[in-house]
């Protein structure tokens, strides 16, 4: 029953599904890398992004993929407000307070979404709905392919931003030595806002892609957060390549568990892989050694 084609197709789907998680995980990891903050409400930003994309698409008739830009801009602004009015006030004191803030934000965002958009599932329909390509045994919809391409483009732009621009340099400096960068005249607060905005914008983009590929309702944020968090732990906190490899590995582990052990094991296996990796590499695959 378990023929080679099924296994290969499953691996390909593992990569495809993993790449959607990567976008969220990278944003989360960027924020962690610079601010040492884990935002558990990151999935809620994805959810809000999906709803903003939905609103722009359904009311103004904007193309589903162009809606990504609106979602990114709006979620970036929301991200700035969140950073300014909640996280900044508890930053660097007690890690558990930061988680607590995230939990408060989750309640806030979920219920604002219920009040504004209702509780029923929505979908964003792309112009390529109902179109797939057949590559050998593999049938894949245009929307998945476009989503993967967008993820790749966004990751390349992000890496370019970090490696080649002044802002990126300042972000890297802040992530390594906060006090030193302040002495060097870097406005750390501005870098924080910028980082959070970029991370949020990526979540917003992921939200629209999510909304094109899956139906969504106000409560969908929780699961992607957990997966993204697992991925950055797997890959190594603060490491962008770690988030990418971690995301793909997570997707593959989850999908292979389905065919080798049965679907019910998918989450458990993904976390077992995570725990095993941490036993051998306590800082994740690409995590930095030592303090």
């Amino acid at each position, binding site marked *: 029953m378990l023929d080679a084609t099924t296994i290969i197709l499953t691996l390909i789907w593992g990569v495809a599904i993993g790449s959607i998680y990567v976008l969220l995980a990278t944003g989360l990891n960027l924020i962690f890398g610079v601010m040492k903050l884990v935002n558990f409400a990151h999935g809620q930003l994805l959810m809000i992004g999906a709803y903003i994309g939905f609103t722009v698409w359904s009311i103004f008739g904007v193309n589903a993929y162009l809606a990504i830009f609106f979602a990114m801009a709006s979620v970036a602004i929301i991200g700035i407000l969140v950073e300014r009015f909640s996280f900044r006030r508890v930053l660097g004191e007690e890690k558990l307070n930061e988680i607590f803030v995230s939990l408060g934000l989750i309640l806030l965002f979920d219920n604002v979404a219920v009040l504004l958009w209702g509780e*029923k599932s929505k*979908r964003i329909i792309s112009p390529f709905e109902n179109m797939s390509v057949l590559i050998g045994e593999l049938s894949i919809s245009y929307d998945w392919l476009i989503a993967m391409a967008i993820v790749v483009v966004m990751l390349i732009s992000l890496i370019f931003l970090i490696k080649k621009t002044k802002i990126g340099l300042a972000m890297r400096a802040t992530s390594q030595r906060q006090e030193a960068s302040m002495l060097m005249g870097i406005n750390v607060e501005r870098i924080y806002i910028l980082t959070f905005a970029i991370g949020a914008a990526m979540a917003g983009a992921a939200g629209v892609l999510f909304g094109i590929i899956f139906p969504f309702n106000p409560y969908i944020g929780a699961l992607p957060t957990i997966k993204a968090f697992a991925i950055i732990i797997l890959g190594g906190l603060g490491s962008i390549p770690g988030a990418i490899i971690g995301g793909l590995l997570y997707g593959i582990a989850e999908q292979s568990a389905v065919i080798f052990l049965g679907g019910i094991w998918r989450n458990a296996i993904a976390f077992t892989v995570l725990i095993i990796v941490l036993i051998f590499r306590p800082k994740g695959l690409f995590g930095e050694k030592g303090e």
Partner: protein
Amino acid sequence: MNNKLLAGIVVVIVVIAAVAVWQFLPSAPAPESIKIGLVAPYQIPVGQDMDRAARMAVDEINDAGGIYVSSLGTSLPIELVIADTENANPEVAVTAVTRAVIQDQVDLLIGGFSSGATLADQVVAIENRVPFIITGASSHLVTRRGPQANYGGLPEGHALRIDDAEGMSYMFHYCTTTAHYSRTVAYFFAEAMKPLLDSEYEFDASRPLRLAVMYRDDAYGQGVWGDTKRFVEDDNLPIEIVAEKNYPIDTQTFQAELTAIKATNPDAVYVVDFTTNSATIYRQGQSDVGLNSVYIAVECCEEPEFYAALGIWGDNQLLESKFASYAGPPFYLEMMNTYVADYQDIYNTVPGMMGADTYDAFYIAKDAIERAGTLDKSAVRDAIETTNMDQMLIITESGKMEFSTEAETYHEIAPFTFVEQLFYDEQIGETRPLVIWPETAPGVGTIKQTDFILPDNYEPGPP
């Protein structure tokens, strides 16, 4: 003992005394309203549908003068008390129902969602002798775990059994159970789909229909699928089960399961899940995996959400139903015409099936209280037990709303379910259903609207 400690204790006693005085101040006046508790999960989309239907029923009844209680010689309005079970977590559900029963002192409970939460929270109603018309838990155990139903087949000493016969008599089940869903789907495949395949593809009559199933791994999924298998085996239906795939309830990506199912070449795929997941499976199966088959989902997917999430991917696919709110107007039941129109007027959305059960249950409650002529809970229970009204929004096997007192179906109704085929409507960007099977329904006559056809892209299994 030092002085400060003494002072502290004095403060405590003063506070307690104050609280006690405040507690004993309000005394119980004569009832000004009939309190009906709605047990609904507001953090699950279906909760708001139950709320809308309940609100509509209550407003209608109150606008018409309320419920006449002969022992008080007056009509009382209904006061809706919400027992919010949030995401149907058993702890929250128990606390919510305890609050409704003990603090708000409801006269009756309606609703419930999720078998797990209901099996936990109904105990509060059982112990406090509050009539509970359960409209949203599919496990038959909610009325059959007591002695009257021989414990619903639970073995001796099983922990779900409840020995309190008196308490169990307050439980009523106005809802389809896993057995109801399963029977319709199994017989649809055997009696409608297999003959069509045989004639279309010249299959041998001895070739069984190749059925694959995807079910969510919880009490609901396991219950539906277990019962379907039982019908296939016990009734010797010509169905071969070629794949069974279960998955955690929070799954969003089903490609691996569907790929594995495709490798088994099924004739049809039975999807046992709720609205969003079912729609996702239809979609990923066709667009991502190329599993071009006939998909059928369970009756509880008859909600606006399902159609919205499905989009074009439902075209020519199937849905089991007991309340075809999209297959009209005009509808097969006269009452549905007004209900669906009113609901759309007020809430600007099409009603779902969870709300329909809830709406009917409020009228059952009204009828029972009026016949009982009192708010005494045991009298109301006796009246509910002898309910004999014409069917309203849900078709039943007898055409009447009545609760069985037989051991095998204790305090259940006998709802009738049927199968719809969905057709894409470009104007609205969603599919709309037509009833395809069976021909007729009890007390209604013909319900079939069109013939079942195989989808254009349909690929059957091997001969």
